[in-house]
């Protein structure tokens, strides 16, 4: 019977789909699983010959010991504040800029867009010294006079941790692409209704690119949360340091405390995973009901 065959084909297709996805997922999570397993191993298990995947003794106490090694509560709080600030700032500012570049024609917008893309092409290590110097010589902060001399500028302050990373050209580019494809008719209709440009952006267009917002929010938070070098360079005080810097205490020059490092890293990764699980739920069909009549 063709109907039964069709159903069977669909089911076989489904099973194949599930199998493929499961296989791919397994391949992807191997390091994560390894990290989890290592975090509960004893040194004897880590040094076991031949190498063992599963611990023989489950050292859950590693987590408590790792947390005691440094003020991780403070680091986590700092990381959270910085990441949240970056996310909010970036999402607002970059989406505005992306929208403007995508939908509002003004002189130089093409060049500005190219500029943002070009900004991505400068390697981090090239920028980092000048960025540090700007922070250090920031006029009228941290004891600096108007020419930026004499004090320490933004060093060892929240400003240095938050402002330089507040907007990313990557996000501007991403928003622009997503705003590009929205129908002009919506815009014109809203204009006829009397909404200003900002209103159109905020009330009409933005809700239609929710996936873009979620994506930028997730990526910004994650990038900021995992940032190591910049916070290390611009802070000295322990009260301002972040999680990744804190985790580096487990990698000494001679030896690495693998179990503690993995425990700490797991703890640092879990919020990201949770955030992603929550965030991806908002990836719903954007246009399902907002059709054009």
């Amino acid at each position, binding site marked *: 019977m063709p109907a039964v065959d069709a159903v069977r084909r669909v089911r076989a297709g489904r099973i194949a789909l599930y199998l493929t996805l499961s296989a791919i997922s397994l391949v992807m999570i191997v390091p994560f699983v390894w990290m989890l397993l290592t975090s509960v191993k004893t040194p004897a298990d880590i040094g076991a010959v031949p190498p063992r995947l599963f611990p023989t003794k489950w050292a859950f106490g590693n987590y408590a010991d790792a947390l005691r090694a440094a003020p991780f509560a403070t680091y986590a709080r700092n990381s959270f504040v910085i990441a949240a600030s970056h996310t909010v700032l970036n999402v607002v500012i970059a989406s505005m800029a992306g929208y403007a570049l995508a939908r509002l024609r003004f002189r130089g917008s093409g060049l500005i867009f190219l500029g943002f893309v070009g900004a991505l092409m400068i390697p981090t290590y090239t920028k980092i010294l000048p960025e540090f110097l700007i922070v250090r010589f920031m006029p009228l902060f941290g004891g600096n006079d108007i020419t930026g001399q004499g004090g320490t500028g933004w060093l060892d302050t929240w400003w240095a941790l938050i402002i330089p990373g507040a907007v990313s050209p990557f996000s501007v580019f991403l928003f622009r692409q997503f705003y590009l494809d929205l129908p002009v008719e919506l815009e014109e209709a809203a204009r006829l209704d009397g909404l200003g440009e900002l209103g159109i952006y905020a009330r009409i267009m933005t809700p239609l690119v929710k996936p873009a917002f979620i994506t930028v929010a997730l990526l910004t938070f994650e990038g900021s949360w995992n940032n190591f070098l910049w916070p290390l360079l611009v802070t000295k005080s322990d009260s301002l340091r972040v999680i990744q810097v804190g985790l580096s205490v487990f990698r000494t020059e*001679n030896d690495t405390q693998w179990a503690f490092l993995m425990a700490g890293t797991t703890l640092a990764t879990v919020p990201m995973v949770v955030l992603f699980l929550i965030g991806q739920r908002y990836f719903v069909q954007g246009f399902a009901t907002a059709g054009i009549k």
Partner: protein
Amino acid sequence: MEYTRRSVLTALGLGAFAAATGCSASPSGDGQAAADGPAEGEITLLTPIFEGSTGKQLLEGKLLPAFKQKNPNVTVKVDYTTYAALNEKLTTGLAGGLMPDVVMLGVGWIPPFAHKKVLAPLPDSLATRFDYEDRVLEPSRYDGKLYALPLVLDTRIVTYRKDMFAEAGIKQPPKDWAELRAMAKELARTDGSGKLTRVGFDPFSIDLRQCWETFLFANDGNLFDESGQQVKFNDERGVEALQLFLDVIKDKSGDYSFKSAAGQPSTLAQGRSAMMMANNSLWVQLKEQNPELLAEDKVGAFILANKVPAMLQGGTLVARSASTKHAAAAQALVEFMGTPETILPTAAQRGSVPGVQDLRTSDYVKNNGFVKLALDNMNKARSEGGTPAWMEIREKIKTTLETAVVGQRTAQQAIDELANLSKQAISRL
């Protein structure tokens, strides 16, 4: 409109940047003068060690309070970094004119920094304050002056499996390279299909640069001349040192892919090598992960020798910046960091070798076989570095010599290439 705004900002940026780099990096000459006067003020200490879960407790819980007792008017602010990020911290600090008052540097870094007047010389009396082996102080000197004090040392020695030696009937560690090669051949094992399961000698578990340097010194060679302006390693002694690796590989008693990987036990611990170049800190690692090897006395170590015995000495030195505003305080801290009371717990915490001979009788040294060996043989210690162009040259050594190890070039070609690159670096000084 955008363009003019951009060009104005550009000009501002250019100007600010030029002013910044121009103004900041010139050190105030005062620091160079002797650190007279009372020790007071707030000083910064940049440290790449004292990490780990106990490092900070040691520094801030024990050592710095002891320092505070002796110098109540000095406050020390600690800036922790990792060795990997130490360079970034130093360069940004230097460029921004905010060099820390007291810094810790690696062996080999003193001539480049002293040459550019970033560090201030220390009074020579500090060299005789404790019982230092002369060799140990060599890397702290430049142009005849003392610029730093050794804190902890890390040496490269050859570790071996006593059980494998006994099994093969070998009674003594090799006295020279001929014996080393012969023993390596005997100790190597292959499986049925001819693939190596155990190498006789694994020189690749430490960085190729430091390994070759150890061999160069064991061959009575030198990296540079006294002034640090001439390349000396490209004579036949340097080539022979590199050639030994190639010979061991050719003998099939060693293999470049047989080296200890990060996160896994060493080839020696795994029984995959009979002899292995190692850092003395391996002892601590074995104690933690494979204590049975130590308990059953299966692991030993010896100093590499060919024409002379040589032990490569790396480590961390402590020095004071030339641009510090509190010279006396900074010097007091440097002096304090160089005392045995500071060195011993620091070394113990990391499994490193203490820099002073006075500590030979301490329990820590007595209970750590590798550290004891290193201290007993301190007069055979040699250090890398020795030229102000070291920071650049040191980066090139491994990648250039590697080409010979993987068979792309002969040893002579690789050494010549390295000599070429080094000469270019020196000419840029």
